[in-house]
């Protein structure tokens, strides 16, 4: 029983970080209706921004984290401006956006390898790594801190999207971009804002991943899991992304603990394919027919 509880806690902690990244996939999908594969690169660079702040600029941890969040948010906005907006303005097929995001992702990863180097880097010990005991359960303090940070950020994001006027505009744009323009909403502003939010939360996710694991140019591959989570929860749905991420984190931890760690990734992909087969709109997505 303890073992099971232990795995649930581990799973939720890793799932919370997946959630930070998968909401970015979902937000962008909800507005522009394509899977932004450059998101992993933004997360990776966010992790490097944090490292830069801590190690090379000597900033205290909160400032370094702010640097990573703002830096990757702006990077995502720049990414949209350069690589997606010209395609959007031409009303090209959505496929072109997907291809372009793939190009950006290749660029981010390899540019980092060429300029910063291919090696793994570790964050300095900024957060405590010891464990707390709760009646037989040992919970890493790092895991608790990570979970709290992710939960606070996600709550803020949910409030922003569902509780504010700006959030209304975001949801209106995602519902129908053309009509929302008639209502006086500037879609380009909303798109930029959405990319900033997606990039910023990915930046925080990157810092947390960097602290928990290490930082390396291909760490964008970790976001594949977050992407799977977004698909499982329903692309375009914010609560879906969070629930999907928590589910995936827990399920994956269980697979690793009770079956075999080698099958953990295989399990995630199998789950994604299963969801696409059974309920492609995901757990929370609306089943809509995309009109050609």
């Amino acid at each position, binding site marked *: 029983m303890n073992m099971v509880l232990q795995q649930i806690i581990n799973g939720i902690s890793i799932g919370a970080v997946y959630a930070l990244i998968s909401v970015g996939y979902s937000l962008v999908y909800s507005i522009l209706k394509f899977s932004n594969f450059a998101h992993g690169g933004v997360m990776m660079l966010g992790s490097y921004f944090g490292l830069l702040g801590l190690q090379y600029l000597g900033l205290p941890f909160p400032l370094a984290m702010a640097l990573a969040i703002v830096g990757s948010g702006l990077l995502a906005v720049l990414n949209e401006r350069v690589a997606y907006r010209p395609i959007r303005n031409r009303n090209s097929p959505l496929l072109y956006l997907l291809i372009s995001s793939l190009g950006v992702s*290749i660029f981010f990863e390899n540019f980092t390898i060429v300029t910063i180097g291919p090696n793994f880097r570790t964050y300095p010990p900024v957060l405590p790594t010891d464990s707390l005991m709760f009646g037989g359960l040992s919970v890493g303090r790092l895991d608790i801190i990570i979970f709290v940070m992710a939960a606070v950020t996600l709550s803020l994001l949910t409030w922003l999207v569902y509780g504010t006027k700006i959030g209304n505009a975001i949801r209106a744009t995602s519902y129908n971009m053309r009509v929302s323009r008639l209502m006086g909403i500037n879609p380009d502003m909303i798109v930029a804002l959405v990319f900033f939010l997606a990039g910023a939360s990915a930046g925080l996710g990157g810092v947390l991943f960097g602290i928990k694991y290490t930082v390396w140019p291909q760490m964008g591959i970790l976001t594949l899991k977050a992407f799977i989570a977004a698909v499982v929860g329903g692309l375009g749905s914010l609560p879906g992304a969070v629930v999907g991420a928590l589910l995936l984190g827990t399920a994956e931890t269980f697979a690793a603990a009770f079956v075999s760690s080698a099958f953990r990734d295989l399990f995630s992909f199998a789950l994604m394919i299963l969801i*696409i087969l059974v309920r492609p709109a995901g757990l929370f997505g609306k089943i809509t027919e995309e009109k050609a």
Partner: protein
Amino acid sequence: MSEYTIGILILACVNLISVLGLSLLTGFTGQFNFGQAGFMAIGAYTAAILTTRLGAPMAVAIAAAMAMSGLASVLIGYPTLRLKGDYFAIGTLGFAEAIRLVIENFDKLTGGSRGIPRIQTYTTLPVALAAVAVALVVVASYIGSTHGRNCIAIREDEMAAEAIGVDAFRYKQVSFAINAVLAGLSGALLAHYVGFIQPSMFGLVKSTEMIVIVIFGGMQSLTGAVIATFLLTALPEVLRAAMAWRLVLYGVLVVFIMIVRPEGVMGTWELSPRNVKAAFARLRSKARPERAGKAG
């Protein structure tokens, strides 16, 4: 020709077979396949296991590789090709990664992440050229036929194509199957050229490379696909020093092409006798003095 040049040529031929399939599926039918390497892996492992473990002749191994890969495309295509949007791309991505992980974990049969060593090198230049010729004829005649035009119609506007009676799902399935069979062939030839295979050869990077070649050459031109394959296979060999920058350039290239010229370098132009004659005629009329005078 030196052995080195022949090696590059064989590699380009092997890549080209896979690219031709992908060109039909992604370029002409408009279905974004993110997992080409998965199908190549199926082909490579099927063929290599047959020749190394069972001592099967190369022809049997190739046939089995193509069959297995084609079968996989039916399994993954049947549910995902009905869906609109990114789901097909996502499905192929997940499929390719899952295949790689399965290969890595069933090490009794596949050698795990160490792979399969000491594969007979059956793939010589004549074999590779013959395979390319067959693939080229199959894909070119398919695209030139009514079926090919139906595929293009689906890419341009699926709803309109269905409205005039094109069974979009069926055509997408056929394109996907042809693509997978060719990818399987390419994988089998690759295994028997390099002499060893391991799962890391068939990762996301390989899938990306394939799709970049198709996009670069022109999503609607087989001529473009051929030129792009030879260019992008040979270039990194020539520019060894700039190796690290190659992938950076790939990324920039993809974004640049999507922004500036989404139809690719060759656009819809094909190297056919008629088009060549027309191009020459245009050149001659430009060279004529009265035309030049008017332009100036």
